[in-house]
């Protein structure tokens, strides 16, 4: 039988052309025919256990579940015939037997599938008079609240754990009336995607614990936005009530985050109300104390101090460090201001050590789109703890792996994957292993055109595992070499990049690069790097990168969105200490700037500012501020705009962030039309291995990556947050 042939079925007496293998419910969904369901979910496998989607099919003696009935040629189906309605009504009655009538106290009330379907398909009165069952609640940790009496056993959460989360933590025990969903042995959920089961649950059995009882679905306003913690750029909805952020839920975007978001994106908003938010501008007085003041005098003090240094020691005495999660607008205005003052010392790569290859390296891009990741048949991950760095990219790669792709990984000890790898190379040093894989490819007769590669691979010792990895990449006609954040934090970053690039070239794979922060690509394109301007424009003199600035601290230092105590590479805090004049623009107080900064300007945090993030695919996504900044805080781009004007620099007359974006966008469009963006024609390798003794970076703990997540208490108390903290502390003492 030819599988491509389309079939004809009749649904409610209307003919539809369908593809073989489709289920009835999919056809109905595609054509806007409503069939009630609880257990069926388009992203999960079919379990057909709720029986809510029963429909009448011609010649079938009984009603059939639409979610598990494949289409057949000439099939006639009725979703609203008297028989179908009677069946749906009976199922609804059974489901409601043990469901408590506690909608008024249930957080799901108002957005509950069971409520809605009971209204549409249920009876108006219950006939059940007997005792309802009660189920003990489970403790799933600080993120997910449970109310297991409400559970209708649809098993969506169970299937999510197995199929999407990758950790089979939740399951069903017992059967019939004794069935219970739970972890069996009490434990907190440890998946980095665990919050999604809250959205999946069709009733109020699984709820958001931090959000519990605080607001109703109908009294919140929903605003689309972009998640600010990783380079996936997940689409989210920020829901507010009375000008305060109440919760964050995903916004479906099949091309980016499907309909999932990571726990980090979901629960980070809880840090917004932290006590140590900066709400007042502060200036250090003669006695060395920070005192609160008004914006005017704080801005004037900042300008005066910076101007004094620039006048005295020249523009190059000024340096600027900015968070890799700043918006494109902030990056652009900051670099425009710093360059306007005659300096090129600007950097957003805060945890990087080795900058020697920056001129040759491409911007951190995935190289393919996120949906394309699923179609790869061979993937080599180099130096990444993907589940922590980019949870939803890790999910895409897992999907590829489950579909048969050969995934190998070179990573430091302690990185855990939630599926079987083809080759897992957990090592103390990344470089020798990556070199060995490159050498294995060389031995297979590849890479003759890459001059200088042999210099890097001569000392490498090729083992069987390296050969297997190399072969898997060669076998895959769609292959991806992915360089992650740990590789960028390595002291041999330039070597790792060159080797990964060489492996990609030799095996015909795409080189994908994903570093830290929500907007590292935006930082590069907006020119917040010392070696090129906006849209890769060549600069007259290459400024100092972060590594150089740490060695030779600039006399005046601008910090933007940085919590110095946690966000920076080793040694950088001391460098701030040696700087003469420090201006810190930040949303949260940190000990370093309160000890050292001469001027502290309070910046609006995420959700309070408008801006744009460029995700790892290169997709520009703008978002609006949805609540007003706390206290006197102002959006970062506005602060920079005013500073730029006070410095008497030209081109800072922007009315809104939109017009700043236009300016960047124009420059980048021109660059793309010239084709100068990512076309690196020749492979360039560094001359030697540089620092060969340094061990691989263990990376930043999943919930320690930026100031906002560090202040989200529930995330810190979650099992993942705690475990990581523990590990982190151990690493620090060792």
């Amino acid at each position: 039988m030819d599988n491509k042939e389309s079939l004809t079925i009749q649904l409610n007496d209307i003919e539809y052309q369908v593809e073989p293998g489709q289920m009835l419910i999919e056809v109905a969904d595609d054509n806007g025919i409503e069939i009630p369901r609880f257990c069926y979910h388009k992203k999960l496998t079919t379990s057909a256990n709720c029986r809510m989607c029963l429909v009448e099919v011609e010649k079938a003696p009984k009603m059939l579940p639409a979610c598990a009935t494949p289409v057949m040629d000439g099939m006639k189906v009725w979703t609203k015939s008297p028989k179908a309605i009677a069946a749906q009504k009976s199922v609804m009655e059974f489901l409601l037997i043990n469901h408590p009538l506690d909608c008024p106290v249930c957080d799901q009330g108002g957005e509950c599938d069971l409520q809605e379907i009971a209204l549409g398909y249920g009876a108006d009165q219950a006939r059940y008079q007997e005792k309802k069952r009660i189920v003990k609640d489970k403790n799933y940790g600080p993120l997910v609240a449970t109310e297991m009496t409400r559970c209708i056993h649809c098993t969506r959460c169970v299937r999510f754990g197995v199929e999407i989360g990758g950790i089979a933590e939740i399951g069903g025990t017992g059967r019939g009336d004794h069935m219970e969903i739970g972890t069996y042995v009490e434990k907190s959920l440890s998946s980095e995607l665990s919050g999604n089961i809250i959205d999946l649950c069709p009733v109020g059995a699984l709820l958001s614990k931090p959000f519990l009882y605080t607001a109703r679905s109908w009294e919140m306003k929903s605003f689309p936005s972009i998640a600010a913690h990783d380079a996936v750029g997940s689409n989210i909805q920020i829901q507010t009530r009375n000008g305060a952020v109440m919760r964050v839920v995903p916004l479906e975007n099949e091309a980016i985050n499907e309909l999932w978001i990571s726990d980090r994106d979901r629960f980070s908003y809880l840090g917004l109300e932290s006590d140590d938010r900066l709400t007042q501008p502060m200036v250090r007085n003669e006695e060395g104390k920070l005192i609160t003041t008004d914006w005017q005098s704080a801005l004037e003090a900042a300008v005066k101090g910076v101007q004094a240094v620039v006048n005295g020691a020249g523009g190059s005495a000024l340096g600027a460090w900015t968070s890799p999660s700043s918006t494109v607008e902030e990056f652009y205005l900051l670099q425009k201001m710093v360059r306007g003052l005659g300096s090129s010392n600007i950097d957003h790569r805060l945890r990087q050590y080795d900058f020697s290859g920056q001129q040759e390296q491409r911007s951190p891009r995935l190289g393919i789109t996120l949906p394309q990741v699923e179609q790869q048949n061979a993937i080599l991950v180099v130096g990444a703890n993907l589940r922590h760095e980019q949870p939803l990219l890790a999910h895409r790669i897992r999907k590829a792996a489950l579909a048969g792709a050969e995934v190998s990984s070179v990573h430091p000890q302690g990185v855990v994957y939630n599926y079987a790898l083809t080759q897992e190379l957990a090592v103390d040093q990344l470089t020798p292993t990556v070199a060995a894989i490159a050498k294995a490819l060389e031995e297979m007769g590849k890479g003759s055109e890459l001059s200088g590669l042999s210099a890097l691979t001569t000392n490498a010792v090729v083992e069987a595992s390296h050969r297997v990895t190399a072969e898997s990449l060669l076998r895959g006609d769609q292959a991806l070499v992915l360089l992650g954040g740990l590789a960028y934090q390595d002291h041999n970053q330039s070597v790792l990049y060159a080797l990964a690039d060489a492996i990609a070239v030799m095996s015909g794979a795409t080189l994908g690069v994903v570093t830290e922060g929500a907007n590292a690509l935006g930082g590069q394109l907006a020119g917040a790097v010392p070696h090129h301007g906006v849209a890769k424009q060549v600069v007259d003199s290459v400024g100092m990168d972060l590594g150089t600035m740490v060695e030779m601290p600039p006399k005046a230092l601008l910090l933007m969105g940085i919590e110095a105590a946690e966000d920076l590479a080793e040694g950088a805090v001391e460098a701030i200490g040696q700087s003469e004049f420090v201006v810190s623009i930040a949303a949260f107080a940190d000990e370093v700037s309160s000890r050292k900064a001469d001027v502290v300007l309070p910046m609006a945090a995420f959700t309070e500012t408008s801006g744009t993030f460029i995700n790892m695919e290169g997709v520009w996504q703008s978002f609006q501020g949805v609540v007003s900044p706390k206290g006197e805080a102002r959006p970062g781009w506005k602060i920079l705009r005013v500073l730029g004007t006070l410095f008497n620099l030209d081109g800072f007359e922007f009315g809104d962030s939109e017009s700043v974006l236009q300016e960047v966008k124009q420059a980048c469009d021109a660059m793309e039309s010239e084709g100068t963006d990512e076309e690196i024609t020749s492979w360039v390798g560094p001359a030697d291995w540089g620092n060969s003794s340094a061990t691989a970076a263990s990376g930043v703990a999943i919930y320690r990556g930026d100031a906002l997540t560090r202040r989200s208490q529930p995330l810190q108390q979650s099992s993942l947050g705690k475990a990581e903290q523990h590990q982190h502390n151990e690493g620090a003492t060792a």
Partner: protein
Amino acid sequence: MDKLKKLLKVWTLWELLQGLSVTGKYLFKKKFTLNYPEEKAPQSPRFRGLHALRRYEDGEERCIACKLCEAVCPAMAITIEAAPRNEGAPQVNGAGRSSNYGNRRTTRYDIDLFKCIFCGYCQEACPVDAIVETRIYEYCFESRTGSVITKEELLKIGDQNESQLAADLEVDGRYR
């Protein structure tokens, strides 16, 4: 003939007397007027006066912060804020109650009596008979902000009138 009749009516002030006879009838009837405040009008058990929040017999407040009254209020006179409360939450899991985290309770329950139109929808919407309208109609405010009545005040009104409220609900319950 008609002309003569008309003339007679005009000169005898017939229509005026006809009108005054109605007035005169009521002059000798029993008076409707009540000597308020000495006398008061009878009230229906459905009388919709000042609001109150009720408690259960064990002293626990009835309101569960479901916010249905807030949602149904046509004048948007009700403002509720809610949070879990651990105090007094049952340790053992009972029907609809949780052992992991406290009960759903209001932290704020304000009614702006200037906005309120006394339609009684809040009482109608309440699934636990917590917000009710009492028979009280004699009250005043001494400041602009005095019109906002808080949760504490509402509970106090409920406590003071509980026997009357319970009796009224009992009577009206037959028709619901």
